């Protein structure tokens, strides 16, 4: 069945450093991939989405490229800020119910 894997449970970084949060998926269909961000005590909000192979998508300084050959959709940012501290979910949607990864908590220190 469909699945999404996020390998890091917690990533701790100093402000200003680059970050990459990993996301790989499994599906037999042509998928839409998403990144959602959830700040403390808030609801998840859409950050990025893509269904186009090898095309970079960007929003609020974050970017990701869907690579169907490697079934990956890693989230990156060149310089993290304190306000980026949050829980990040990778999600997959195709013909069935959406699948979410376990989430990666990003903690940015001063």
């Amino acid at each position: 069945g469909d699945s999404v894997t996020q390998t890091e449970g917690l990533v701790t970084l100093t402000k200003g450093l680059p970050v990459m949060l990993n996301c790989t998926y499994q599906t037999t269909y042509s998928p839409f991939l998403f990144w959602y961000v959830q700040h403390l005590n808030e609801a998840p909000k859409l950050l990025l989405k893509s269904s186009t192979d090898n095309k970079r998508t960007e929003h609020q300084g974050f970017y990701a490229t869907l690579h169907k050959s490697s079934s990956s959709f890693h989230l990156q940012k060149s310089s993290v800020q304190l306000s980026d501290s949050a829980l990040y979910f990778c999600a997959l949607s195709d013909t069935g119910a959406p699948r979410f990864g376990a989430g990666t908590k990003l903690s940015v220190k001063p």
Partner: protein
Amino acid sequence: NAGVIQTPRHKVTGKGQEATLWCEPISGHSAVFWYRQTIVQGLEFLTYFRNQAPIDDSGMPKERFSAQMPNQSHSTLKIQSTQPQDSAVYLCASSSDRYEQYFGPGTRLTVL
């Protein structure tokens, strides 16, 4: 656009009592999703509706949990005989297609 509305925001029940959670999707959205979020289990899919019809309830616990969508403007998640392990934040989301979801603020259920 008020976004997805969930009521109540917080609910405290005693063990064995019933809890009903309400969700009002964004007007015009055809799909409604229910999730449960805990620190231990993360974000768990429960069920979803499209055009008010139940499509997939594979994440719903088979006993005590039920969901309905009697009209396009609201959905309910009912938990009978609540147990402490049901304590979680229950999130509702709506979508205008099969893809991008808009989440409500959630209902924090605490079972004593």
